[in-house]
């Protein structure tokens, strides 16, 4: 154990998770990387140690295995200062429309699991009286669209959960950040046509998360242009919105 601050990244294998871990390690945090496959986390752990001489641990974590959450939190060597949930699943809207199992997995991976695990950490943080929780949601949660409302509605639920938790926890010295990426070039969006000027690389999101934690920001859009884009999309009347094909 060191006297440095520590961050736990749930979904450490994702491009955004790797970028966030680097940003925090660069500014001196010890890091925990959690994910389903510990073997894929090891090279990233070695990378962080070699670059920044910080302590890095890797932990097995499956966001669908809610029954194991209590013991997962209990098994950590120490309660971190910051916990970031980056876990998410885009899935396939079209199959999710008729395949209930797939729809359920999308909903659980983006809403149920991330909310429950951050909620659990929130209780520990409130007992301690400090800590920051970060949830990576999505602009897709700001309004359900025809092309991805199953994923979008789960993100909307997660955003609402974070908003409520923030209001409650802020009185107990615990801060909650909601991160809403727009388009990010990652494994999730590989091969998709993204709109260049509205798209960022994962390190931009990683840096934005670090800044939001340090500045105690409540809600961040990345890139910031999405705040305006979503404002417009949210204010379109349903009569107009339902005719749009996206």
């Amino acid at each position, binding site marked *: 154990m060191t006297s440095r601050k520590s961050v736990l990244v749930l979904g450490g294998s994702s491009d955004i998770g790797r970028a966030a871990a680097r940003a925090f390690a*660069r500014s001196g945090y010890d890091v925990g990387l959690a994910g389903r496959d510990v073997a894929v986390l090891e*090279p*990233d752990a*070695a*990378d962080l140690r*070699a*670059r*920044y*001489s910080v302590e890095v641990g890797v932990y097995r974590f499956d966001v669908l295995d809610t029954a194991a959450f209590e013991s997962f939190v209990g098994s950590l060597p120490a309660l971190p200062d910051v916990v970031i949930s980056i876990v998410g699943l885009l899935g396939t809207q079209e199959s999710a429309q008729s395949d209930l199992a797939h729809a359920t997995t999308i909903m659980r991976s983006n809403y149920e699991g991330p909310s429950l695990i951050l909620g659990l950490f929130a209780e520990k943080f409130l007992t301690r009286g400090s800590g920051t929780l970060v949830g990576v949601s999505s602009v897709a949660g700001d309004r359900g669209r025809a092309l991805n409302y199953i994923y979008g509605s789960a993100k909307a639920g997660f955003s609402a959960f974070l908003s409520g938790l923030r209001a409650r926890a802020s009185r107990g010295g615990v801060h909650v950040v909601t991160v809403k990426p727009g388009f990010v070039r990652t*494994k999730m969006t*590989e091969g998709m046509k993204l709109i260049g000027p509205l798209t960022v690389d994962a390190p931009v999101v990683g840096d934005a998360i670090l800044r939001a934690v340090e500045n105690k920001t409540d809600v961040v859009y990345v890139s910031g242009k999405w705040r305006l884009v979503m404002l417009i999309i949210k204010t379109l009347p349903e009569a107009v919105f339902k005719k749009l094909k996206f």
Partner: protein
Amino acid sequence: MTLVSGWGRFPVVDTDLLRPRSFEAVGEAVADVTGSVARGNGRAYGDAAIGTARTVAMTGFDRIRSFDPVTGRIRLEAGVLLADLIDTFGPRGFLPFVVPGTRFVSVGGAIAADVHGKNHHCEGGFGRYVDRIQLATGEGETIEVSREQNSDAFFATVGGMGLTGVILEASMRLRPVETGWIRERVIAASDLDAAMRALDAGDTATYSVAWIDCAARGRSLGRSLIYLGEHAGKDELADGADAFPLGRNPGLAVPIDMPSMTLNRYSIRAFNELYYRLGARRAGGSQLVSLYPYFFPLDSLADWNRIYGKRGFLQHQCVIPEAGARDVLGDILDRVARRGDASFLAVLKKLGQGDGLLSFPLPGYTLALDFPVKGGILEFLDEIDHLVVAAGGRLYLAKDARQSRATFEAGYPALPRFNAIRKSLDPKGNIRSKLSQRLFDEV
């Protein structure tokens, strides 16, 4: 399929651009098709980093495997950018031994082109500091190559333009430094003779380079500013100065393709005149400059290649053996000045012996010039190539998009050996780039 080009934006080629996520996937990507090559950060100017069928993007492999802060030995994945290495390990007292004129190149690309820096005359190229390379061959097998093990493959891979296989990982040494500052001395040279004399006198300097005003003619032909540099020690810094100020990421970018009109002989001449006069004012004394503007003056403007317009541009970089270099360089510069559309600036510097079979450097002077792609330029450069070949020189493959096979074969006498090694590593000929199709492969 994706349209891909090099930094010069010429040629533009449709290719199957893959972004594998594991080394196994890299092996599969090259083994199951005829005509693929690795791509780093796309800073080679021409067609070197584009496969004839498939292009394997490597920048996702950006992990450091291990680092020894005592010796400076590092093992890393090939997609790590030198910019990342400098920002991460500079503040800890270590820098790459060799850096090219942009820091946005990958380690794999730096090995494959055996890139040279301003210190080649005394410290050699990038490959000299690489001990081991892990390579995925065209068969999809992973092999280790070093000076001791598979040494033929090692010396073919250093400078081999990706044609021996995909570099997955490398082990190399970093240079210990006390600060991120360079003590720079600027010398104004009024013509080519003075410039070459100043470079010769700079042989003992760790870093030396000359920026030539290629619009100057007549008695001023070859008029230059020579920049010499040494790593500054801690004791040279003012009290309280930051020992390693980080370079900023390029904030300014060229947002659109500029109309080709922007660069004409008048704007170039005016720019060069101004540049020379401003530089000449700094000449004489010595000053501390951050390593970022010293090594990477162009990196502060993102996407600067767009100022040449949609049709792109060509860089011509040759090296001329020391003996007789003066006359050939004078001849080339004179033709360039008469033509009037060469780059803002030409770069002249001295090189030492290269290490790889196809490494570009040989003891002599290298001259680099940029030209917008437009009428008559290909014929003009062919004439320059004749001068280069007649003088026993060669062209840099990392900058090339148009040299002829004859020019290439004359310049690289080790080519048959290289081809034999390549064949033994990749009997089916799976690894092929647009560059190899143009210059190496049997037709």
